[in-house]
């Protein structure tokens, strides 16, 4: 099967650089799948899970905290505001963050606090989902 290069970058570090068979991106309009030699594409990502298939057939996941992705020259570059590979995710911390965010959402805070808590909840859920075995 044809392969494409996947790069996941954040401002702080180079999270991943590997050859893959396919990538499923969680975009603002739902999930899109990218295969090798996809035409040049720029897409907005929301907070969610990125899935990719390794060349050995294994499926892997990463949690993405929003950003955008660029496909060009058979290379998919993901610019994320935060990103963690499944094995890097601290599940206990994500659970704690989820609990805290849910509690804050119940407390009917001011609008900006509400937005903040909702973002925190989405991120926690994405992390937990990515870390699932």
């Amino acid at each position, binding site marked *: 099967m044809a392969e494409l290069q996947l790069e996941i*970058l*954040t*401002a*702080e*570090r*180079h999270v991943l650089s590997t050859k893959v068979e396919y990538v499923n991106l969680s*975009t*603002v*309009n739902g999930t*899109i799948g990218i295969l090798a030699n996809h*035409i*040049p*594409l*720029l*897409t*907005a*990502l929301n907070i969610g899970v990125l899935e990719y298939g390794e060349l050995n057939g294994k499926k892997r996941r990463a949690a993405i905290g*929003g*950003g*955008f992705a*660029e496909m*060009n*020259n058979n290379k998919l*570059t993901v*610019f994320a*505001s*935060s990103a963690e590979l499944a094995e890097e995710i601290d599940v206990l911390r994500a659970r704690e963050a989820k609990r805290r965010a849910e509690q804050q959402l119940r407390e009917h805070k001011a609008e900006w606090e509400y937005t903040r808590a909702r973002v925190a909840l989405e991120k926690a859920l994405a992390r937990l989902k990515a870390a699932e075995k």
Partner: protein
Amino acid sequence: MGNSGRDIKRRIQSVKNTQQITKAMEMIAATKLRKAQINVEKARPYQTHLEASLASALAAAMNEEHELPTIAKETKQERPCLVVFTSDRGLVGAFNANILKAAEEYFAEHENAQVIVIGRQGRDYFNKHNLAYLADFVYIGDSPVFAQANDISQVIQDFYLNDIIDRVDLLYTAFVSPITQRLTRQQILPVGELAVPEGHQAAPFYIYEPSVEEVLASMIPLYLSTTIYHAILESSASEYASSMNAMRNASDNAAELIEELNLSFNRYRQRVITTEISEIVGGAEALG
């Protein structure tokens, strides 16, 4: 006479103690500088690539005459805001003085300029001179993280989208090398037309999913946070370089002072010995 000998000794000891401290501080600054330098260099490719992608998306949006998201629109640029990056700590040579002088120049150019201040030294300066600021961010710490830049960027976007300011410039010290740092002023809002960085090849036609506007709306906040993160990293590397140089100068000065004091101590000792000998000789002659 005996007193002055002890005085000199005491002074030498005190200068030596100071020298030990400045030497230690120089070493600490050098270690921190190395770390900060690595961080700056790690962050640069991301920044360049991001700018290139943003540049091509903006160009595409303009070619096709799309309605831009509010954050990307041109403004009249009548109410500028300066974001000044200073250090939290003192003892960093002329680092803060230089940046604050450049800030004053900006205020002279733009009389109605607002300011957002990063770093304790800057905030103290504005407080002392009774200058108002829109927001302040202090205690950034030794290892800045992206989340901090994100917070600053959030606040800037709030002011900008609520039409309190309509232009944003960053003022920070860019790190060139441990001996050279350059004051840099960079406009980040309105985004305007970005030049595609040299050597970067962008695809001529992209598909924008779901639309150019949506892609820009998610790119620009990321671009702002990244640029601010970058400015923080550059500024902190420059701060350590400046601190290292200041401490090296202090150690060198201390070494010079110790040498001078040693010389005058030796002179003093010689004088005491000469006096003693001439007294003994004088006494022996009187007896003889």
